[in-house]
């Protein structure tokens, strides 16, 4: 057990270094080309055009990618641990979809400027309704089938809600704004966005990470976990609220971004094994690395060569890369997922 702790530490340090390297690349990436040296000096002294670009434009974006990626990675790992299922992720509960309904309502009807608390609060409320509703409907001894079906129903209902908002949008411009926002992006996010989202994201990390020992005990099933002293109701409640806070705030700031929560825990399991408690921290770091890398990619791949200012949308990239990757991984590791001898 000690040796596994040491190898975990090595992995965590390696992933943290990866996130740092990606962060520096992210500070360098964009329409204005900046060398690593300029990026770092701009970051620390804030002088000149590079300083403004790095500090005011690229730094908030990079930090948001790291925080939001980590939130998705951690909430995926937490939900997989709680439900004892490697396919669980926030989208299974319809959480991002429901958060989108709340946030897009605020945006479409102009109740909120982009940097007020109304959008994240509406997003969190939406996520809370979906995740809380799912846990309430699915009940205490939810089978996976019931959970999946209820999650599917919530996701579809939330999708219809968003469609309704687009449908009834007061102006075509508002509809377009919501539609683009739904595709997910970190373009033009400022320090204000960061300050609004960060407290919710950090609160969600605390709630989800505190329950790591419970995820491990749940390996033995709910009865055995309860007999080991785990308060299942409290664990469920904390994971529901933690996921809603994190996903709600993330979706409110960055729009809909999928697959990080599903892919990040899977990627780290090959190194840390299947212990759902040990997966949490590496999955968060892997999520941060994935989203930062995706956010670099959208800036490097021109969406329209004639209008270089328009970027690919982040949610599009994570889904386009994430889905085939995930299918390949399932194909490769299906024996492990099925739990049969290797």
């Amino acid at each position, binding site marked *: *057990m*000690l040796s596994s702790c040491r190898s975990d530490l090595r992995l965590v340090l390696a992933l943290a270094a990866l996130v740092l390297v990606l962060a520096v690349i992210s500070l360098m990436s964009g329409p204005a080309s900046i060398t690593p040296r300029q990026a770092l000096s701009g970051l620390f002294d804030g002088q000149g055009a590079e300083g403004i670009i790095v500090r005011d434009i690229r730094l908030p974006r990079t930090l948001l990618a790291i925080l939001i990626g980590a939130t998705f990675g951690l909430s995926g790992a937490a939900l997989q641990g709680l439900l*004892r*299922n490697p396919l669980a992720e926030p989208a299974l509960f319809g959480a991002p979809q429901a958060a989108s309904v709340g946030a897009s309502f605020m945006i479409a009807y102009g109740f909120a400027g982009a940097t007020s608390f109304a959008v994240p609060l509406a997003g969190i409320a939406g996520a809370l309704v979906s995740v809380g509703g799912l846990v309430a409907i699915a009940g205490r001894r939810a089978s996976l089938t019931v959970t999946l079906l209820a999650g599917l129903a919530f996701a579809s209902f939330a999708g219809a809600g968003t469609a309704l908002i687009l449908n009834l949008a007061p102006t075509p411009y508002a509809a377009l704004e919501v539609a683009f926002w739904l595709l997910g992006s970190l373009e033009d996010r400022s320090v204000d966005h960061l300050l609004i989202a960060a407290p919710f994201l950090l609160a969600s990390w605390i709630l989800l990470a505190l329950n790591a*020992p419970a995820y*491990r*005990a*749940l*390996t*033995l*099933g709910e*009865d*055995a976990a*309860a*007999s*080991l*002293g*785990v*308060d299942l109701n409290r664990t469920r409640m904390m994971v529901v609220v933690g996921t809603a806070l994190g996903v709600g705030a993330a979706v409110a700031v960055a729009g809909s971004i999928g697959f990080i929560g599903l892919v990040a825990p899977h990627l780290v399991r090959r190194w840390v*094994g*299947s*212990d*759902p408690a040990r997966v949490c921290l590496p999955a968060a770091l892997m999520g941060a690395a994935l989203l930062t890398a995706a956010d670099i990619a959208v800036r490097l791949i021109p969406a329209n060569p004639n209008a270089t200012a328009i970027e690919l949308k982040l949610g599009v990239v994570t889904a386009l890369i994430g889905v085939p990757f995930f299918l390949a991984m399932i194909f490769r590791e299906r024996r*492990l997922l099925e*739990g*049969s*001898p*290797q």
Partner: protein
Amino acid sequence: MSAILQAQGVGVRLGGVPIVNGADLSLRTGELTAMVGPNGAGKTTLIRALAGLLPFEGRIAINGRALAEISARERARRIAYLPQGNVFHWPLSVADVVALGRTPHADPFSGITADDRAAVVRALTITETETFATRPVTTLSGGERARVALARALATQAAVLLADEPTVSLDPRHQLVVMQLLRDAARAGGAVLAVVHDLALAARFADRVLVMDKGRIVAGAPPGEALTAERIAAVFGVEVIPVDVGGATVPVASRAI
């Protein structure tokens, strides 16, 4: 010998339906108690209530303190519970699974203590699971899994061990090994209650046998008194032949009535 876990007038309803009625029992330190009864008699429901996992009427006390008065963590340190089915949702290593038995003792700030390590090693050794301690638990056979599950429960080193059908899916040798382990755990100062379907195993290994029928405990006595041919016929609907095994007379079912 002193009673460590006592139940008085315990009733349990599931979905409004009474499953267990007026159950009185006491588990004593140093004793292995077997609980037998036909399918649907309420054995699992009663054992889950004793483990503090179900709301119940009546009173269940450990060391004279009502179950409801002690914290879940305190309860988990005193009562180890081995559920039916030996479920393992993730392919953890056998050693990591057994270490889960130390969860009630875990202190987030001290990590794994020497006591934890000794308890895990001991549980692995006595259940003969140490040879595959590093293998993923999901790659084991049914019998191996059953022993790992038992090792996990033993690793808690609780004063009371409640085991729900610990010998199911075991070959004859390991059935004997597990019953002996449970008796050893009792002799080492524990109070052990095991749900057992094999009347012969119950008669041979248990110090006392509880017979459950239709939600009630209809007998609680040493095997010879509890497992009479008349009672077995009335409760299980089978005729038995008494067979002498190593000095103990055990009932072997011969014919359905």
